[in-house]
């Protein structure tokens, strides 16, 4: 099967800047993109440099941007990339990290975010079992972090994340999924501290772009992030703009069944925050002039009482369950 690889090359000392080079290949039908890179390196140009090791998607080395989307090239067949009528395979290094050479990038920021979430078990030292026994952990308790364990720290989601792309402070889905793994570990004793730290690091800065849900290992970081947010509110960490937005939004729906956008923005800015309100005034004025500034409480559903009733019933049901067995939240996704 023939294919054309268009690869971003950059050899420091030789090239002034990254540029693309073309390679024509004719490989076996099931060949992967990694097979293609290896072929080029072995037969055409051994200076082509890229990270790779296991070639079966467990080591996390070979993430690169392929035709605009980050993938693990060891499990991406060339055929699947050509399926949609494309004639070439464009390969570029991971986003959000500086290329060192060709497809190799500087991942120090990525690893720093990983370290920032203190990714090791922090148990209550007094509760550690003796040397000849384990903590008792049921399969149900493990289920809560089972998907997080799949993460191979490949940076596919980090490279595709829209927030990471522009904001170096945002920890990114991998670090947050790793944090989730420890928050949900029943043997860890630092849940509240971790949640506070995650709020400080930016768990509320996820913009729900869901690129991370294309994870090659099905980690589903977006669901982990949603759960971390929920737990942070439950733990009383609500003095931050993200939690306030969530709570005020929900309250707004609880009033009339529909979002009162103007009131929400006013509340989040702070009703008494004169400087903030002044700062927002130009935008508010523009919207008003275009007829896009609804009056507060402008819309509600036909039967707001039904919405009130649902709010009450759901909350009552959850309180009853909490009294019974401590933790019954509906989590999202298939069985997470």
């Amino acid at each position, binding site marked *: 099967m023939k294919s054309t690889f268009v690869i971003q090359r950059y050899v*420091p000392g030789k090239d002034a800047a990254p540029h693309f080079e073309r390679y024509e290949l004719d490989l076996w039908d*099931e060949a992967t993109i990694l097979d293609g890179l290896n072929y080029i*390196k072995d037969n055409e*140009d051994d200076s082509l440099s890229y990270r790779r*090791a*296991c070639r079966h*998607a467990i080591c*996390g080395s070979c993430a690169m941007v392929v035709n605009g989307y980050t993938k693990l090239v060891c499990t991406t067949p060339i055929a699947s990339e050509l399926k949609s009528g494309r004639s070439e395979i464009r390969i570029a290094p991971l986003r959000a990290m500086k290329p060192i050479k060709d497809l190799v990038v500087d991942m120090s920021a990525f690893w720093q975010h990983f370290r920032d979430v203190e990714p090791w078990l922090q148990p209550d030292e007094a509760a550690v079992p003796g040397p000849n026994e384990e903590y*008792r952990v049921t399969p149900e308790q493990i289920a809560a972090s089972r998907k997080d364990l799949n993460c191979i720290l490949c940076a596919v989601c980090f490279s595709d994340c829209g927030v990471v792309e522009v904001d170096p402070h945002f920890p990114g889905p991998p670090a947050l999924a790793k944090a989730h793994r420890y928050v949900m570990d029943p043997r860890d004793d630092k849940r509240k501290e971790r949640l506070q730290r995650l709020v400080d690091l930016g768990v509320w800065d996820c913009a729900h772009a869901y690129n991370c849900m294309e994870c090659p290992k099905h980690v589903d970081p977006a669901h982990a992030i949603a759960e971390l947010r929920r737990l942070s509110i439950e733990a009383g960490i609500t003095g931050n703009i993200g939690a306030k937005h969530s709570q005020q939004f929900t309250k707004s729906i609880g009033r009339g069944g529909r979002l009162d956008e103007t009131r929400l923005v006013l509340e989040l800015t702070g009703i008494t925050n004169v400087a903030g309100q002044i700062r927002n005034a130009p935008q508010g004025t523009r919207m008003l002039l275009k007829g896009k500034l609804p009056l507060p409480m402008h819309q509600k559903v036909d039967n707001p009482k039904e919405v009130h009733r649902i709010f009450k019933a759901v909350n009552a049901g959850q309180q009853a369950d909490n009294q019974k067995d401590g933790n019954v939240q509906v989590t999202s996704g298939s069985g997470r």
Partner: protein
Amino acid sequence: MVNAAIQHEVLVVGAGLAGLRAAVAARQAGVDTAILSKVHPMRSHSGAAQGGINAAIGKDDNWENHWFDTVKGSDYLADQDAAEILTRSAPENIYELEHQGVLFSRWQDGRIATRPFGGAGVPRTCFVADITGHVILQTVYEQAIKNGVTVYEEFFVVSLIVEDNVCRGVIALDIISGKLSAIRAKAVVFAMGGSGRVFFKSTNSLVSTGDGVALAYLAGAPVEDMEFIQFHPTTLAANGVLITEGARGEGAYLLNSEGERFMFKYAPSKGELASRDVVARAETTEILEGRGVNGCVMLDLRHLGEARIQERLPQIRELAIDFAGVDPVDSPIPIKPGAHYTMGGIRVDKTCASPVAGFFAAGECSAVSVHGANRLGGNSLLETVVFGKIAGTSAAAYATEHDFSAFPDEALATQEDRRAQLFSSHGKEKVGALRDAMQAAMNAHFPIFRCESQMKEGIQKLRDLRERFANVSLDDTSMVFNTALTEAYELDAMLDQAQIIAVGALARTESRGAHARTDFKDRDDQNWLKHTVATYSPEGPVLTYEPVTMGKFQPMERVY
């Protein structure tokens, strides 16, 4: 005397499980410790281990059973005192891993679950679904971060510096900058992994090139039992990717073209769960005798049901879909044996010390020997943590009792010259082609069933390849991240190891464990109950033999 640019009291090379465990142990002993790794620690091949880690933690089990199974599994070539350490300390090591955070799969009552594995009398393989190595590696790496271990990421060790039988340190290439540095250490621990890439279509990652074994050998440390290469019974035909023994542990069948569970012909009692060498030979025999399917036999998981497969074996399900085009829920997976594990390695004693002062080794690159002629599944992960810890502790103790030794002036220059020579060569040989030829030669001449004429031919081919390597040239002569250079270093190391494997295999005129010969079909305890020890000479490996440390298990006929 060169003041080495970098120095640490304990230097661990290799950041897989054994290396990380050693470094944490050394650090916890209060010693200045650093790890060098040619890949980021999380990219280490330990992460590819799937099925589990052995420990006799069950109520109805005890470590002495595990000890016996290990020795029997080794075809009686394991040093029984080393195997005792491995199996006796297994439970406490498992619990330690669990306390550190490994989320082992559980029984309903919350205790660590076990699954059956090959060659085990009783199920004693603890696991995390089928991603056991990956989860343990992450946990131990996290512990290394927590304990403040310094890691030199993407540093490639090109030479082990030994003078007057004292280890001085290493010369390492900083892959990113291209700078070669002398790194001085009081104690060096090699944990550089196995040599599977010497063969074609191995389960091993592309970085499993056994650099440690070659560098130790060249520096004068003896290497042991290299001819014993484990061919894992269940690897995918397309690319050699591993399908865990845990599949058979969960109840999968091995079927030939007649739909027969043929393993019971070869292992009447254990069937699919006989030890790996037995299964690999059985499969090869079935295939050679015409009962294969396109050069494979079939691994059938259908009767396990989707729920169990998804719970216990999700990774291998994906691998089968991605690389074999079958969903094991609906179809059997075609598999065949593939090079997987190096039982042999750098010869060390029970404290992980080699005969070179200050030089230690642990993990797959070492031979203590706990695996002898064949390794049981689940014992490799165990070995990394048990002997990783021992190596780190030993190295720390050594470092505490010794000063830094002088680092030879010319060592760095020698490596600079070696690189310069590679860069300036206009030879017509290419690393990729030579590597392919070496792997093909190893597969053809040192497979599961070996014989003299075949091996002699192989040795000659390897000699030719070694000569051709002198004419290798590189397209890439740049400094930054030069992987053409690192692959050349790796090929150099693999050619040495191939040679050691080859001459050891030819010399051993018996069949034992994974070394099976059609011209010497039986195990010969009279003459061959001994370790092959290879020492460097300019003319090639010099073979001597050392006795096996026996214990209470006398060699018996090995049936499963």
